[in-house]
């Protein structure tokens, strides 16, 4: 069935985080790929965007890439697929991208096309009901099973979609797809699987394309790469004039951002890359054969969840006196004690105070081998987190300013123990933490995802809900 090969164009490994490079994108589009696709999300950016439901990427950059991709895809008449909309893949981010697609279509008076989109958010109550029914929400990466307390502490959960919602939307005739949170590789694997290509090569294709030009050399982001799948191999080609895909660059990419370069887990199975063979096919192309796919006995979908810790303020103090530098932990302990005298112990009063000591171990903390050799001056960043903004401000101000009054036994300077570049604290985004990095068993691969298709027409506005 179907065609002997299909070609997939990926211009950006995280759409919106930085704009795609136009030259290599245009070069790639000129080769008439069969699909134009990009992942737009990551859990790399910390729990704050998911928890507070915002993007880290500016709208202008998101729209820039969506516009380039949509215009090219509609001109070629090929599907365009975006996964993990707006950094987090939450429902509001999907809606925002859907609105951008409509807006771009209107602006360019595009001929009508069918837009498919799906939501990935999972209500807490749904997870709670599964747990109440005896389902164990298993932890990943050494975490224990999800507890009722951790679920309660969670503000937003997204399920990480595999290939299933994408295949279903393609089956419903979608020509443009905006996905909620998804496994990066699934975006690419879905159309390949649907066209009848082997699972192992389809998932490998997704794995190798999801970060765009990070699989090429020399190192450069946001340049277009094209992957071609056949029934025997995957070939990946750099489109940028100054990049090549080499066996080393392509194999090297298998390691990127994952614990182990040989295995990658998806909803439905594991991609085994331990038997992959890499060969230079032409100047800019590497050919890969030999990946395997091991289906899993049950379907488990990954859940990501973020929970609010509190409102957050930030303060800063510098230290130059060598004696104070050597006793900085005593200075911090003094300031902590003053805050505790005012509010009580942190656990009981519900606040947190964090000190990052730059010039000693500010970047690496406990992992810093040189933390016993501080520099001649230190910068201390102070974060106070508390249930209310007022309390967070006071905790942070006291935790910062009391460093000034720290009582060290032999200090020469008695007119202030630290230097303030500003004598105030500033409000920053609320603090969140990753509460869920777990998996949930499902019977139906679509049960956590809500699918929609609509007709979009450039002008005039006329839309009808198909399902």
């Amino acid at each position, binding site marked *: 069935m179907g065609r002997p090969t299909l070609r997939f164009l990926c211009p950006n490994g995280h759409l919106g985080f930085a704009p795609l490079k136009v030259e290599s994108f245009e070069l790639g589009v000129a080769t008439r790929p069969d699909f134009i696709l990009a992942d737009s999300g990551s*859990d*790399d*950016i*910390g*729990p*704050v965007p998911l928890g507070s439901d915002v993007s880290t990427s500016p709208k202008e950059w998101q729209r820039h890439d969506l516009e380039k991709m949509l215009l090219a895809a509609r001109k070629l008449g090929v599907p365009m697929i975006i996964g993990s909309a707006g950094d987090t893949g939450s429902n509001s981010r999907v809606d925002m991208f859907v609105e951008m697609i409509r807006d771009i279509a209107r602006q360019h008076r595009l001929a009508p096309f069918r837009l498919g989109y799906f939501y990935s958010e999972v209500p807490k109550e749904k997870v709670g009901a599964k747990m109440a029914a005896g389902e164990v929400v298993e932890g*990943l*990466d*050494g*975490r224990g099973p999800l507890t009722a307390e951790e679920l309660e502490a969670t503000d937003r959960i997204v399920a990480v979609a595999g290939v299933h919602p994408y295949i279903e939307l393609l089956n419903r005739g979608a020509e443009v797809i905006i996905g909620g949170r998804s496994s990066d590789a699934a975006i690419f694997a879905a159309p390949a699987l649907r066209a009848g290509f082997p699972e192992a090569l389809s998932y490998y294709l997704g794995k190798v394309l999801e970060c765009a030009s990070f699989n090429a050399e020399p190192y450069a982001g946001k340049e277009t790469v094209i992957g071609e799948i056949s029934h025997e191999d995957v070939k990946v080609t750099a489109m940028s004039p100054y990049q090549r895909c080499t*066996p*080393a660059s392509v*194999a*090297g990419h*298998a*390691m*990127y*951002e*994952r*614990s*182990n*370069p*040989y295995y990658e887990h998806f909803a439905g199975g594991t991609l085994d890359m331990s038997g*992959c063979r*890499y060969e230079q096919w032409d100047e800019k192309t590497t050919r890969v054969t030999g990946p395997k796919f091991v289906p899993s006995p049950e379907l488990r979908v990954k859940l*990501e969840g973020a929970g609010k*810790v509190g409102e*957050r303020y930030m303060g800063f103090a510098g230290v130059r006196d060598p004696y104070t530098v050597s006793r900085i932990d005593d200075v911090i302990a003094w300031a902590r004690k003053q805050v505790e005298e005012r509010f009580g112990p942190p656990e009981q009063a519900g606040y*947190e105070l*964090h000190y*990052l000591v730059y010039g000693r171990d*500010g*970047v*690496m*903390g*406990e*992992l*810093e*081998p*040189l933390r016993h050799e501080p520099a001649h001056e230190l910068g201390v960043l102070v*974060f106070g*987190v508390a249930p209310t903004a007022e309390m967070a401000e006071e905790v942070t101000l006291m935790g910062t300013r009391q460093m000034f009054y720290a009582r060290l036994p032999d200090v020469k300077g008695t007119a202030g123990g630290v230097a303030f570049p500003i004598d105030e604290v500033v409000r920053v985004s609320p*603090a*969140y*933490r*990753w509460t869920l*990095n777990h998996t949930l068993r499902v019977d139906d691969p679509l049960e956590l995802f809500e699918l929609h298709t609509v007709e979009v027409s450039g002008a005039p506005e006329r839309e009808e809900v198909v399902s």
Partner: protein
Amino acid sequence: MSGAGEDAMGAPAAGAARPVATRRLAELAKTVRSKNAGVDRITFDVIFQDRENYELVKRSGVLTRESVARLYGISESRITDFVTFDPAYAIKFTILRSRPSGSPGDPDIFGSQQYAPLLDIEVPVVSEG
């Protein structure tokens, strides 16, 4: 890390085994990097331009589960993976974070600056002289 650099090596004693100098890992590797692998782990990649330097470091025994645990002052149980990856001339290991990325107090949301101590690892090399 202790270990003298190349320049510090004196002339070999007559009849001694071939003299051994050391070179910093930063000189031998093309890429040394760290990055999140999910929200609970940081993964480290040491990638070489060619097989020669890759094999040299792989065989040297200075980059192992034990040496990395010692360098970062953590227990070996926090190292979840340690693999050599021939197709990419790479040595890779992964550690559990002490708290998930981006939690209050986490200084490195992306885990992207945790590799620096690896650069100074001294790798024994057989002296040319």
